[in-house]
């Protein structure tokens, strides 16, 4: 067999980098950041299972952070990004998309509405600079857009025992799904948001960059009674794929619009304006391809760019594929011709081998992420 070696070395490191190295994590480049893929004594499957059954903590400090501040900041953001920030109240967060004029997705991100004049953004690592650049270019006089990538860390605490873990640190819990609290931990500010990328009940903590290591250390201790695990980005990927959550660069991109990705729920169609509105409205009437879930019925694992056919005819390709540790089956997200329907049987070409799969509507697993 052959083993792959990583290409160019990542230049950027998280505030928790030395923690990961000390734990013996396997590190890899992720959007230009040297991040943990998995930790020893577990591996992807054990870390995945810890989150589904108990609790896991993830360093996701590579995620971007940015602020939009000034009179009417929320209205300004609302006129740029797709979702309707007027659907939420201050103290809540929202999943939204930054599109270009052609409807392609520059990034998908989370908007934290602090007040009408203060909005916090969590874009993807590799896209932060571009999102900030576009917002800065569009910002009217008086509104300041600032890239805060290295001002904050982000630690996700995910799984049914998350509340108990946070309570043991004296952090607030139990707020509504997608809402956040600006809390204090040992004299340091930390935002506690009921969000995540795993499908499990959980929180994402946003401490200041320099406060992140102490918070991480406290969390490592706090998860011990629950047999929780530090989890790498490998498990984060299998968890999100089981939920059918898109990953920018694979399932969303400048070439894959929210209409195709069936992320129309994150588009405020009734708003007067947002970037890409005209193009997306036109595409909505006649999409050329749509995102579907594929549940493999045979043995094998689909991967990104595997071709998909039905009755011998090409109907599209896989955008994300992996092994589902929960189902013990291959699963995939695929962009398929719109006439392919849930329940259809298709064939995935996995390196020359035909793998049969059923078209399904994600999520692939049932979870209780929203429950109070």
């Amino acid at each position: 067999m052959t083993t792959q070696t990583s290409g160019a070395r990542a230049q950027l490191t998280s505030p928790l980098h030395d923690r990961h190295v000390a734990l013996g994590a396997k590190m890899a480049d992720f959007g230009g950041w040297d991040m943990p893929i998995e930790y020893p004594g577990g591996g992807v499957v054990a870390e995945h299972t810890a989150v589904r059954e108990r609790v896991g903590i993830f360093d996701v400090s590579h995620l971007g952070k940015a602020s939009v501040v000034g009179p009417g900041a929320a209205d300004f953001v609302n006129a740029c990004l797709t979702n309707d920030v007027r659907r939420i109240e201050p103290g809540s967060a929202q999943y939204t998309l930054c599109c270009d004029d052609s409807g392609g997705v520059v990034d998908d991100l989370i908007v934290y509405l602090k007040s009408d004049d203060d909005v916090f953004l969590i874009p993807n690592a590799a896209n932060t600079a571009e999102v900030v650049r576009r917002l800065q270019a569009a910002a009217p006089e008086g509104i300041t857009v600032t890239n805060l990538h290295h001002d904050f860390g982000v630690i996700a605490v995910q799984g049914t025992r998350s509340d108990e873990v946070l309570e043991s640190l004296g952090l607030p819990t139990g707020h509504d799904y997608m809402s956040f609290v600006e809390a204090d931990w040992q004299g340091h500010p930390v935002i506690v948001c009921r969000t995540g990328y795993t499908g499990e009940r959980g929180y994402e903590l946003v401490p200041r960059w320099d406060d992140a290591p102490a918070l991480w250390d406290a969390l490592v201790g706090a998860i011990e009674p629950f047999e929780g695990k530090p989890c790498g980005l490998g498990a984060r990927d299998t968890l999100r794929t089981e939920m059918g959550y898109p990953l920018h660069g694979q399932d969303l991109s400048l070439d894959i619009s929210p209409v195709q990705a069936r992320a129309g729920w994150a588009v405020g169609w009734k708003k007067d304006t947002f970037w890409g509105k005209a193009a997306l409205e036109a595409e909505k009437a006649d999409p050329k391809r749509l995102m579907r879930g594929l549940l493999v019925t045979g043995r094998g694992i689909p991967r990104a760019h595997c071709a998909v056919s039905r009755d011998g005819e090409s109907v599209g390709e896989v955008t994300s594929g992996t092994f589902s540790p929960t189902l013990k089956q291959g699963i995939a997200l695929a962009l398929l011709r719109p006439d392919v329907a849930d329940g259809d049987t298709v064939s995935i070409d996995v390196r020359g081998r035909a793998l049969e799969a059923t078209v399904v509507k994600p999520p692939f697993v049932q979870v209780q992420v929203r429950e109070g």
Partner: protein
Amino acid sequence: MTDLDYPSDLRYTSDHEWVRVGDDGVVRIGITSFAQDALGDVVYVSLPAVGDTVTPGDSCGEVESTKSVSDVYAPLEGEVTATNEALDASPELINSDPYGEGWMFEMRLADASAVDSLMDASAYTASLS
């Protein structure tokens, strides 16, 4: 990487496979501790068919983990005589016991002395550093 071991009674290839010499020119083949650790959790294994004739470097199977897939190569020339069917249901044996229950296939060598061309444990260990 401290707990990875490379038994001295095995031979090794640069593709991170091990070869155990048995009786009558039959050898057993698997992947090394280094390889299974690099792959991570193995979740799917495909193996050659019994009766296949293979030559060195032939791709004759795949080991797939949650994050990547790697080809399995024939280390030497010969005929496949057995495969480890337990890996169908329990591919994780490759992680938990790479030199034992995680073996992959057996082959009868065309030339039993060809094993001598492979690395011994000290040469393989040196190749990893």
